[in-house]
């Protein structure tokens, strides 16, 4: 079974925000919520680079660990999903998430949090696949249709890639070797346990460590 991941090649990202727009449009996400966003580091300075970031669907997902109502689950493809029927909008997953992925519509008292919304890897949620209720709560389920996430499919420079992590790693290393430079797979050392010895840097987590 494939282990689904995102990989953003920051040498290719031109900060066009097509992924952000595609995602918002595809899933009709609530107002004020951005499941995906493009962050530019060192803006206007040498070493400037843009990275498209969303939920990374971590191996040992911190959101799932800290959730008070245990509303998260991981699919066989490694996609981290949650149930909006169980979520109480407490904000714990947001405190724990290294990537700022969980977002909350401001619908409740005191301007507080409604039910959490985040990237689903275009894989819907716990409702039955491809039903209107699933679409209304979680957006489209492209994976069930045999398609990959729209953000990556939409990327004009192929900076953002989605799919089997092993294939992505191979594509990226091949690319970076050809170019002669690269800044790594953003977020991977935080999100995933390195699956090959030597492929992690000091910040990465070696095999067997969670």
């Amino acid at each position: 079974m494939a282990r689904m991941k995102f990989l953003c090649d920051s040498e290719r990202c031109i900060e066009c925000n097509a992924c952000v727009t595609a995602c918002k449009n595809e899933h009709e996400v609530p107002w004020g919520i951005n499941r995906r966003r493009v962050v530019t580091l060192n803006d206007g300075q040498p070493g400037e680079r843009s990275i498209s970031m969303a939920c990374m669907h971590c191996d040992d997902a911190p959101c799932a660990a800290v959730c008070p109502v245990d509303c998260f689950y991981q699919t066989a493809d490694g996609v981290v999903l949650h149930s909006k029927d169980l979520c109480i909008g407490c904000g714990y997953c947001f405190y724990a998430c290294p990537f700022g992925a969980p977002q909350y519509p401001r619908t409740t008292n005191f301007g507080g949090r409604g039910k959490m919304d985040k990237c689903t890897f275009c894989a819907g949620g716990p409702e039955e696949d491809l039903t209107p209720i699933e679409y209304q709560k979680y957006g489209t389920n492209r994976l069930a249709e045999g398609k990959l996430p729209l953000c990556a499919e939409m990327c004009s420079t192929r900076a953002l890639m989605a799919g089997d992590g092993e294939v992505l790693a191979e594509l990226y290393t091949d690319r970076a070797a050809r170019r002669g430079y690269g800044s790594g797979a953003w977020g991977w050392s935080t999100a995933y346990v390195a699956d090959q010895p030597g492929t992690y840097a000091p910040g990465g987590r070696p095999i067997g460590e969670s």
Partner: protein
Amino acid sequence: MPRIRAFAPVAAFLLALLLAAPALAQVEVEGPGAGEGGTVAPGLELPAPEAEPPAADVQLYMPEEDQLIGRLTIPNRSLATLVQPEGRTWRAFRMETLFWIAGIVILGTLAALAAFYFWRGTIRIDRGRSDRWVPRFNGLERFAHWTTALSFIALALTGLIVTFGRFLLIPLMGHDAFTATSEVSKNLHNFSSVPFVLGLVLMLALWIRDNLPTRADLVWLKHGGGMFSRNASFHPESGRFNAGQKGIFWAVVLGGIAMTVTGIMLMTPFYVTGVSGMQIAHVVHAILAALMIAMILGHIYIGTIGMEGAFDAMGKGEVDENWAIEHHRGWYEAQRDAGRQPAPGTRPAGAD
């Protein structure tokens, strides 16, 4: 034969290319700077051709030790944080450290109170009840106390449900019922904060004068309030409030203010701080909550089963005269001098 004929145009094209090659080369030689021995304008030098590094040398997992904050073109500023590895530290606090702190502090206090009860039992009024009552807390004071008390109990229980319910209650009631419970708990927790703050402000205004430290408090503290001697007849001198009560007062007021500030920060995300501030606010909120729950357990104990006659103060608003003399002699005498004691000449036998 037809095969070779099919290749003829291709062959002609290749031949044309071969012929054109010298001409292309000539164009290149006529490039800028070529006349002066091949010098190129600074900054335009091409890097020396290097051998392609093998793909195995490409680093995929890069170190991400620090928070990375960039710039966004969408209006949600809070999303500008690309990576915040501090989330792992917060996770460790919420899943491990807090369990130990809250477990030791709250369960430890319960165990200590149980042990104390077995050792000391209910602290009796030495001379028995006089059945003469001295007014101690008026209606407004009791309103302030019970507003704070009831909202505190609601806050504590709902907070405990949301924090630890996943491990204690989901196995018992299942996911759906627990979500309903914690949804109610979350709203009750948010709303109870309003009466809690009102009661807190009221108590502060009503009782701050009587809770300023005095010299007598040192004596009280030195003797542990007389709680730890089984010689029940010993009571350190104290005014309206003894040092222990003053300690509770200041802990509730200062702790309550800290809980309120951090609670508002958590309730209104991004109005005050970003995610780092909210993580710190949660840690402070959770640790203080555990400490205050433990302290209030002690307060409830001594105000109910721990001491005879103590509950009347907040229950009826009046205390037994003998209780007042034993526990708050200084205050009792001031009340008597001000004429707020029971009518003279009705002193029961044995009151001296």
